[in-house]
């Protein structure tokens, strides 16, 4: 990781600790836009992390900039962080200065070929980057003001954040392509990776909350952390968190290599599995307290349940990996797994 990234992660963490408390996440759930938080994210330049310096950005490569998403997960940041970060990087390539301000979201065909996936934060977005797949698998983009498009009635997803289905309005006007995501498969892979990184961050936070709660909550005259049954569960949770972190990091490290598609499928599949198991244990450790709206655990776990299904759930990416292995055959399994085919 380069020094600029390290510095940016540190200042981002300081900012989010103060600017993204539970109250802000609650407000979003109640239907209120987090304008103050957004302004602070903009002021620090976080959303322009992957926009070239010449266009007013930080100029980080995608693999570095996307590490910010771990913090977005850790602090349950209730804005289209991944969409704006990635969308601006794509739009900057086309030289569209006007779209590098304001919230941006992405409308992307779903991985299972069933039309556009629900568009996160659609009702609040100023810009919508609409991806359109060509018959050859390439993808072109249009960046349109949100009000030019037609959306379904917004609904709240599992995380309590607004989303809507794209019904129409795109298709007219100029399009552009991006070297960062020349194909639909690559775009979907990048988005799957982004969710894996976010899940890793949310899992870290769920573990921290669980450990802190177990050390504080007393029953039978001692902290529940002293009970082996609880210790064993927290150890299992730690394993899931560690696996999700390593899988997500490996996905970032692979960006730009011939192994990237595989590494992203692994990242989404493994982190998605960890999300389900991890959320279950975190809740069990927190008891009834964690089931309340007052406690902040659900801001992590509901995002885990949401993100594991976005841009392909575990079974989807597992099957992608499995079909490739079957095509390569039994004797190629080990070379395939080790990237030494």
């Amino acid at each position, binding site marked *: 990781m380069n020094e600029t990234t390290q510095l940016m992660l540190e200042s981002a963490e300081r900012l989010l600790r103060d600017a993204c408390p539970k109250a802000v996440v609650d407000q979003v759930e109640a239907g209120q836009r987090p304008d103050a938080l957004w302004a602070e994210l903009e002021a620090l330049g976080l959303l322009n992390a992957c926009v070239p310096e010449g266009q007013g950005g930080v100029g980080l490569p995608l693999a570095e900039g996307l590490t910010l998403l771990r913090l977005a997960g850790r602090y349950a940041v209730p804005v289209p962080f991944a969409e704006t970060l990635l969308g601006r990087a794509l739009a900057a390539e086309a030289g569209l200065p006007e779209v590098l301000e304001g919230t941006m979201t992405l409308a992307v065909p779903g991985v299972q070929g069933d039309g556009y996936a629900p568009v996160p934060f659609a009702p609040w977005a100023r810009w919508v980057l609409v991806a359109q797949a060509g018959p050859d698998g390439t993808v072109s983009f249009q960046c349109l003001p949100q009000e030019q498009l037609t959306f379904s009635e917004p609904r709240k997803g599992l995380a309590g954040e607004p989303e809507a289905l794209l019904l129409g309005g795109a298709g007219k006007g100029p399009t552009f392509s991006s070297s960062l995501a020349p194909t639909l498969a690559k775009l979907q892979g990048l988005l799957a990776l982004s969710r894996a990184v976010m899940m890793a961050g949310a899992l870290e936070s769920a573990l921290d909350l669980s450990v802190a709660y177990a050390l504080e909550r007393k029953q039978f005259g001692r902290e529940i952390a002293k009970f082996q049954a609880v210790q*064993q569960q*927290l150890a299992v949770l730690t394993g899931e968190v560690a696996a999700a972190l390593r899988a997500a990091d490996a996905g970032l490290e692979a960006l730009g290599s011939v192994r990237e598609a595989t590494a992203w499928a692994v990242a989404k599949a493994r982190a998605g599995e960890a999300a389900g198991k991890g959320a279950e244990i975190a809740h069990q450790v927190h008891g009834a307290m964690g089931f309340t709206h007052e406690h902040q655990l659900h801001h992590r776990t509901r995002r885990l349940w949401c993100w594991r299904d976005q841009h392909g759930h575990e079974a989807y990416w597992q099957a992608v990996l499995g079909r490739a292995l079957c095509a390569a055959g039994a004797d190629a399994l*080990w070379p395939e*797994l*080790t990237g030494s085919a």
Partner: protein
Amino acid sequence: MATALTFDPVTLPTAAEALRNEVRQFVAETLGNEHRRNSDFGASHDPEFSRALGQRGWIGMTWPAKYGGGGRSFFERYVMTEELLAAGAPVGAHWIADRQSGPLLLRYGTEAQREFFLPKIIAGECFFSIGMSEPDSGSDLASVRTTATPVEGGWLVNGTKLWSSGAHRNHYMITLVRTPTESESRHAGLSQLIVDLRNSSGLTVRPITNLAGDAEFNEVVFEDCFVPADRLVGEPGNGWEQVTSELGYERSGPERFLSAFRVFVELLREVGPKPTDHQAAVLGRMAAHMMTLRNMSISVAGMLESNRNPVVEAALVKELGNNFEREVPEIARLVAPGGGSALFRQTLEDTILHAPSFTIRGGTREILRGMIARGLGLR
């Protein structure tokens, strides 16, 4: 993050990847291309294969050249071992000597011990067993009762060691014993002795047949068994520290997630090129687990290479890896298309029969989870 887990990114160095091809070629030449069963480091004893590896310089490959070692990196050793395990090679004879006895002697042994034992281990001609557990001391290792009483020129050992894999055919066993101490602490007064399994009097090795019908592990009974003074490893009374450091080498290697690998290979052969969606997802899930585990294990190898002591990270690799190994046969039996080749059925059945040991050997699942919990500050 309060819990500060570190799994640094690692890219295997070019030298390690170059070695991979050499090992593959060696395996193909030595064992042929026929389909193989799992490589179980606790079984699969083949002295001839171990000698052949020794001749290639692949035992003790990270050890200093002055003892005949290769002076190579942990990454190269990592690649060499994972290639052998994945290929189902019989690595059991030299495994313990290479993984932990040699490193223990390098760290705590006398110069004379290093000069005597290490070249033999490196040549693939000297095999070690582990003498830690006892009838009443399993997970609670500090409760061992085997004693070593100082006598003229050495020690008299009395007691019983249990589950010592390969003791009936290996040459030496590093044995954890109680030696006299003033201290009340249960971790004090423990020492390690190198016991000659082939030339000692007062020593009885009784193989114990496991549930699969194989006699791999043993009961080793000491009755006034004399061990010369120069076979003490390290300082008398320092045994607990030494044993703990030795266990550190045990936990994070590829043998912690490859014990069932041949089942995965043969399952893929059974399923063939056109899986159902369910089969594809199940196989892909196994692949996602394995690739992530391997990535974590290599990361720990990197930490060992830079002289760090990643206790919790190593325990996490073993915990996740062993759970995965135990899951593989359970998955395979449910998604295989039915019938199946003789090799598939044999490999699957072998693995089902050995799977209970995966989450016991080298520290039970419960002990490892306790170590992880300690790392979290819970105890």
